[in-house]
């Protein structure tokens, strides 16, 4: 069975600095998707970034980028120039590709990110 592990329950960063959130996963599949979701205090989860396992290039969305290491089964999120609005719970999630879009997301336990002004 696939699992997702986030080993950092909480992290804190100064505003305008860079922070990296860690995620590892376990799967026997070769083709899958990885996601980072952000859950602000309002509780609605927002998709931050997506990575396809078959792509070697790391995904980037503005200040958010990932470091995808397929062999190591590692998928970290880097937030550059941290802003107060980045404070949230961040979830790493996995979805296998085979079987299509009905496949479920498997979530990690989350990392609570605090931004210090």
């Amino acid at each position, binding site marked *: 069975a696939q699992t997702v592990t986030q080993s950092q329950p909480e992290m804190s960063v100064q505003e305008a600095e860079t922070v990296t959130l860690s995620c590892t996963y376990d799967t026997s599949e070769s083709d899958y998707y990885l*996601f980072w979701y952000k859950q602000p205090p309002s509780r*609605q*989860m927002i998709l931050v970034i997506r990575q396809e396992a078959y792509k070697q290039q790391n995904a980037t969305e503005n200040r958010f980028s990932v470091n995808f290491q397929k062999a190591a089964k590692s998928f970290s999120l880097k937030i550059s120039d941290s802003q107060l609005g980045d404070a949230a719970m961040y*979830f790493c999630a996995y979805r296998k590709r085979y079987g299509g879009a*009905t*496949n479920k997301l498997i979530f990690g336990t989350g990392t609570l990110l605090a931004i210090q002004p």
Partner: protein
Amino acid sequence: EPEVTQTPSHQVTQMGQEVILRCVPISNHLYFYWYRQILGQKVEFLVSFYNNEISEKSEIFDDQFSVERPDGSNFTLKIRSTKLEDSAMYFCASGQVYEQYFGPGTRLTVT
């Protein structure tokens, strides 16, 4: 930008009562999901739904749970006889090919 909406935002019910949680997915999405998050725990998959039938369900999704897409726009989760342990935040999601987009959740409190 289109969003997934859920009603109610908070539902309080007594143990043994039936509850229906409602979701309006994004209009052109074809795949629908329910997840739940017990306070302080990870988000857990309940069920996925496509082409008017359940595609996959988890162990949590037992005979007390059912889903329905009654009118082509709403997507509902029914819990027939609620238990204390059903207290959680319930998230609806919809998607196309890659991502799943989540609603704001319904906080269910069973007393």
